[in-house]
């Protein structure tokens, strides 16, 4: 469904992605793992069209996304760093986004309700804490009923309850046949969510398979230990 072929991206002299080939299907939760600066966010941003690759193709439903923009109606994005206009009120943000997204008329308000976004409607986005901003961001990512959901480090700033709400929502959307891409460093999240683990080091794809395959390959009992083994093996 989402296909990436020979993707390359360099920032100056540093190569962020090298000849990346990978494909994702609907109804899967993919966790993308790798050390800091390994190219995870660059990969996600390339899919979103925020970063423009040097070469290679990304296609959704066999259609290249190069110079396209309509395809982003299919994607919901929850960024790693939530940056919003400081003076904008939460209410204004949601009204504005609904106003701009004329393509969408079926809203998914589930997280919006669970996180009680209405209660912070009159606060400005600048005055919200990191965790609150993440809730706003999560509600916004699911709001327009996308079929691909891209989440960059979701649970880092969320409290345990909110984090669990988000994970439940992710699992529910997977059951609804959506594709979810997550980058994370938290082993529990991987254990709970991942159908497939994609492991990237220095922009090169090193592993792309199920949790069970990972455990078998590394001869380790838990996903956490298996991943650690994989990472350490890579570094030596």
């Amino acid at each position: 469904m989402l296909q990436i072929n020979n993707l390359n991206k360099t920032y100056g002299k540093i190569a962020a992605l090298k000849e990346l080939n990978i494909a994702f299907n609907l109804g899967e939760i993919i966790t993308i793992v790798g050390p800091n600066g390994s190219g995870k966010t660059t990969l996600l941003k390339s899919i979103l069209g925020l970063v423009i690759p040097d070469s290679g193709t990304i296609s959704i439903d066999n259609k290249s996304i190069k110079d396209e923009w309509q395809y982003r109606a299919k994607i919901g994005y929850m960024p790693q760093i939530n940056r919003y206009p400081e003076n904008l009120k939460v209410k204004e943000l949601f009204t504005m986004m609904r106003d701009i997204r004329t393509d969408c008329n079926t809203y998914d308000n589930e997280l919006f309700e669970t996180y009680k976004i209405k209660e912070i409607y009159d606060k400005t986005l600048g005055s919200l804490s990191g965790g609150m901003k993440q809730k706003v961001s999560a509600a916004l990512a699911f709001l327009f009923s996308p079929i691909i959901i891209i989440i960059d480090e979701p649970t880092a700033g969320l409290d345990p309850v909110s984090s669990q709400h988000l994970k439940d929502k992710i699992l529910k959307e997977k059951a609804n046949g959506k594709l979810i891409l997550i980058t994370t460093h938290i082993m529990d999240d991987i254990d709970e969510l991942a159908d497939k683990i994609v492991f990237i080091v220095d922009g090169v794809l090193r592993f792309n398979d199920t949790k069970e395959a990972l455990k078998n390959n590394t001869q380790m009992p838990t996903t956490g230990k298996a991943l650690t083994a994989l990472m350490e093996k890579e570094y030596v």
Partner: protein
Amino acid sequence: MFKILKNVLFNSLRNKVMIGYTFILFILSWGIIYLQGDIEKSVASLLSVVLLLIPLVSIIIATINYYNSQEFIELLMTHPIKRRTIFLAHYLGIAWVLALTFLVGVGLPLLIAGGFDISVMYLLATGFLLTFIFTGLAFLASVFSKDKARGIGLSLILWFYFSIVYDAVVMSALVYLSDYPLEKTLMFMTALNPVDLSRIIILLNLDISALMGYTGALYKKFFGSSEGIIYSFGFLFLWVIIPVWKATKKFIKKDF
């Protein structure tokens, strides 16, 4: 496009800096008109405001605004909206807000005091176009700069170049080459600087242009004619379009 433009306009018009700036312009213009007592003289005095202050304030406010809107721009870019639309909506939003502050701050007192005088019209038209030109230059400087400090620095250099450096270069060229007939060359060279072009449009449509000697007469013959006016406004329009076009091209290929 229209919805984003509406949001940019709405958010900028609420800005206290903009309201304060309009107020200061208004007081300043009103004061000058009151002190001069004559509309032609007021236009000549306000000329320096329009040629120095309007480009400077436009380029600085537009640059700061671009960097402050970056979060909003990035948010919009993850949604199904063309990059070109996002960029142009922001440009038009800021340019219109700045143009409105100019029209209210400088235009309103002049129109109240002098009515629809032709020199007032030229002053307002050039000031309006200069706002769009320098907002465009600000966006151009911003898309090519990595961070806010560099962006503002580059914008200031651009302003400094068009307002001061360019004139100094033309002047010294004139002094060194005074033995040659340079009138035609000089007329062409003014077209390469929107500030000079605006100054000439306004000055030559005031009576004081008679005091500018032989070159002034030649200028008056050309820029005073309808052909010259079309030519100079044509160049001002090019100055609006080219920087924005170049900036949009860069913006479309940028990584965020």
